[in-house]
């Protein structure tokens, strides 16, 4: 049982699931998208990134890159959401923008999980 691997896999998959939960629903309907879920996805994604710091293998470098992409997308989504609240309400246009950004992050998270499987195959121990 490799604690390092397990914890990283846990956080990466959790980031993906939370992200998916936020993303699913009508793209411009505020009722279908929960701000708390977006926040949680962002935090978990950042934790996963930090867990990958210092991995000098080539696989580790790609992991770090994809994970950073997901962070960036989610961070932008969160900033837009926050700006909208302080500027008088969440309109359907804002929701659509935020959700599409989280959709991008979802894609990056999917790549991370694919890499996770590939790593498990490459390092057979």
């Amino acid at each position, binding site marked *: 049982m490799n604690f390092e691997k397990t914890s*990283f896999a846990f956080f990466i998959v959790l980031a993906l699931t939370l992200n998916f939960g936020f993303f699913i629903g009508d793209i411009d309907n505020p009722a279908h998208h929960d701000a708390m879920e977006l926040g949680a996805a962002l935090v978990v994604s950042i934790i996963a990134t930090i867990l990958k*710091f*210092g991995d*000098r293998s080539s696989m*580790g470098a790609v992991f770090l890159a994809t994970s950073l992409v997901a962070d960036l997308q989610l961070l932008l989504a969160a900033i837009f959401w926050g700006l909208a609240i302080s500027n008088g309400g969440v309109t359907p246009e804002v929701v659509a923008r935020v959700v599409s950004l989280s959709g991008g992050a979802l894609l990056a998270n999917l790549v991370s999980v694919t890499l996770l499987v590939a790593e498990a195959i490459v390092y*057979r*121990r």
Partner: protein
Amino acid sequence: MYGMNDIVWLTMRRMRLPLIVLLLVFFASVLVMVTLPGVNAEGEPVHLSYLDAAYFVAIMSTTIGFGEIPYPFTDTQRMVVLALVFPNVIAWLYSFGVILQLLLDRQFQQVMARSRFGRKVRGMGSDSFYLVCGFGSTGYVVVQGLLARGKRAVVMDADEDLVHARALDPRFTFTPIFGGDPTIPANLERAGLERDNCRGVIITTDDDHANLTMAITSKLLRPSLPVFARSEDDRVSDNMRSFGTDHVINPYEIFAERLYLALTSPIKYLVQDWLITVPGKPMRHRKLEPRTGRWIVCGAGRFGSQVIERLARDGTPYTVVDVHPERSGDYEGAILGRGTEAHTLKQAGIEDAVGIIACTGDDIDNLSIIMTARELNDKLFQIVRQEDQRNTPLFDKLGADLVAQRSLIVARRILAVATNPMLATFLDHLVHENDEFAEKVFARLKACVETYCGQGVEDWPSPQQWTVELDASHAPGAAALFEADMELTLSYLLHNTRSERDEDLHCVCLEIERGAQRLFLPANSTRLQPGDRLLFAGWGRARHEMMWSLEDPVLLLNYATPGPAPRTSIGRWLWRRRQADSGRI
């Protein structure tokens, strides 16, 4: 330098007259068309504009002919056009002909080929390559061998037809090949001699003087670059060594040496054979068993005389058979004749000889000698010389004990020393050590290939050889262990660190180079140090897996420590804390 501007300049020089003629005729025609009045749709007189006129003349002279613009011509205009058509069309065809002639011109094609070659060499970027001069049968085998070992080559040969024929081979698609004289310094420079990624110059033509010239040129232009040169003449060989040629390869010498090994130490011969065969080719299993006694040498040319010299040095009795009286006269009791006829061989005492060496310059004669000799004495040890690569199926069918092929001997030796310098020192050691050492190497390799192939398999493939260097840039995995002050023994490298099963790689460590120290056939418990260079021979995925161990930052560490080794910063921090805790307890 050379290249594009050469082509442009040549084209310009050739096209000067046709272009002048074309322009004069064209402008004269345009002027005539502008001054001639035509009529418009209303019947009023109009002149063509310069644009219309130029357009019309261009369309007419190129025989495209879209018609009369802007209005249908008058009879006068048509008569004038009739007069203009011929000079214009002739001027066009003349220019066209000159251009075609230029494209078909041999000199021009050479310039084109040269610039293409230069572009291809530059296009190799930073890939390291060997510069191979001579693309005859030796060069051909060398280049194939380099490609098979994952190296790249740049090839040059003075025989253009040969180059064109060989360049069609799809295997050489990404190998720059040039038909030009490699003894000319400018050509060597064009082939990338001065480039940083050139790893060595390999000279393989069958002209000793040309080889000497190339070796000198290479050594003068780039003294630090290793040069591997073929030479078939002792004086030329000495000359080459005198100015620092790194390896002079004389096929006759090598063959005589190999023959001596085969006769005096079959086990050394066998191990050497295993290590210099092209990786993956099936290997000879059985040891040769030549008996002691008298030998018959057919053909006392350059090949034969080297062999005879070697036999004489050992005190082995021999009888020479040669068709040239001036050659056979040099040896005592020599028989005059080809050796292809039974009575000549009987005269030479074939019935009580132990072996025969057929080394005339003619393949068919050599085959015939061996076949005749077999009829007379089936216990003979047979050695035959082959000159032409195309006769290989015949020699395979013949099944002599040893086939000596000049081009192959040179090519194998060059490949062995050029692509793997450590192998050359190992083979040297093998030849000079006693038989016991060769037996040990043989036993190791045999045990390894048996586990790789499984029991009962008849055809063993020959091993690949590779060198690893334990420094931080080539082997971060090993460096991680050295940094952590942990022990790295040879057995770690021989293990498959990616696998969950406890499996060893199918390879044998032949030598460790540590500064000036050399350890041959080191034990698995040998402790390795930073900067060590190791030579391995192995099968299958052994090299691939070893590279994983060495290049991945933690696989070796993982294998060396009881728990999983940490990969990341946080993991390492936790691990250190745990180490400290356990230390306190």
